[in-house]
């Protein structure tokens, strides 16, 4: 029996099938059920209806956030994340399953972001109120202070050298193991850790200037 699959805000490796739309679902929520990345990729390659939509639903949030952390700008992050999925669609046959699908998408995402960052100066800006979900648990003043601090940190991250920025984002926000980051950046684990250290050291220095 086909059920509506909603997995976008949970870990991609979990198999979750829910009946009815979730808060993150859209009108074209896929009606297929697959559990592993490999099955999902095979379903996409077999052009099963809804397969790529499911892949999109599962990973769009993480990919968007990766891009947002690179450019600190909602509009650019949205464009970059779209680029990532278009490239992933074109290159899906190249996915060998040696890493998780999420890591493979991160690799594409980092390449897309590094290319963009190389050709364009990031123009940091906060999310607009229309785009951001306010937290009900905190008061208005706290939320403003918290957002201001977050803006400063994002701006400081945007000023880090590219590889330090990529390392810090992947490690601090996406919890990728050093080994995976090394694979994505094509470097050694030792180099990743050193980059991580220098990123944090520079970040502290930049935040001290604020």
């Amino acid at each position, binding site marked *: 029996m086909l059920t509506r699959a909603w997995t*976008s805000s949970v870990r991609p490796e979990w198999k979750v099938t829910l009946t009815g739309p979730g*808060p*993150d*679902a*859209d*009108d*074209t929520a896929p009606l297929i059920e697959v559990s592993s990345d490999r099955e999902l990729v095979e379903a996409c390659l077999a052009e099963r209806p809804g397969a*790529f*939509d499911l892949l*999109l*639903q599962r990973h*769009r*949030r993480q990919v*968007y*956030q990766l891009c*947002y952390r690179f450019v600190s700008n*909602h509009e650019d992050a*949205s464009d970059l*994340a*779209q680029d990532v*999925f*278009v490239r992933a*669609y*074109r290159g899906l046959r190249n996915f060998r399953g040696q890493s998780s699908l999420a890591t493979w998408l991160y690799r594409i995402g980092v390449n897309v972001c590094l290319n963009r960052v190389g050709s364009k100066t990031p123009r940091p800006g906060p*999310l607009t109120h*229309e*785009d*951001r*979900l306010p*937290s009900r648990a905190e008061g208005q003043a706290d939320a403003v202070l*918290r957002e201001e*601090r*977050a803006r400063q*940190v*994002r701006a400081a*991250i945007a000023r880090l050298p590219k590889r330090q920025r990529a390392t*810090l984002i992947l490690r*601090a*926000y996406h919890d990728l193991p050093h080994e995976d980051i090394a694979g994505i950046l094509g470097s050694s684990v*030792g180099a990743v*850790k*050193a980059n*991580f*250290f*220098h990123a*944090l*050291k520079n*970040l*502290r220095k930049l*935040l001290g200037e604020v």
Partner: protein
Amino acid sequence: MSHLSPAEFADHAEGTLAPAREAHLHECRGCREQADAVRDAFATTRDVTDMEPSPLFWEHFSARVRERIADTPVAPPPWWRGHAAMLASAITVMLLVLVIGLDAPRPRVAGIPMSSGASISALDARPDAAWDMLASLAEEDTSVTSGAPSDAAHALGLSVRPATVDAAVLELSAAEREELGRLLKDELKRSGA
């Protein structure tokens, strides 16, 4: 004890530094200050909450990706993909021609004379339909084994030296011999031999 390396400072920030190296932090004020600063920076970084765009954004996002994929022109397949079978056949024929034209050293096979006057009847003992076919072809055109290339061999573009065919054919597998026989027969038919 040596000071902490950058990788060790990173480990300390994540709480995975080896206990032996943690001990150094109690003794070395410089490393301790550096380690604390890095750990604070890590905590500050992680304290930044996730941005969470609205569900409306996700609808728009997915739709845009689908549009862009639909707009993406499909790259044409490589030119050779539609001719793979033809190419494979051509390569097979070229290899066979090369094998036949090769001036290979004569293998020592008991009972099979390798002189220019090789008797094809020595091959008759082999229970192989391909051998039979080649033998009959050779009988039809004995000049191939006697060293005087026939018109048919010329038509095939073969340069045959004495006993070369014997040596080359002996090196072929059963499938190759069968294919060779078929090709020769086809060519002989086509040339009216």
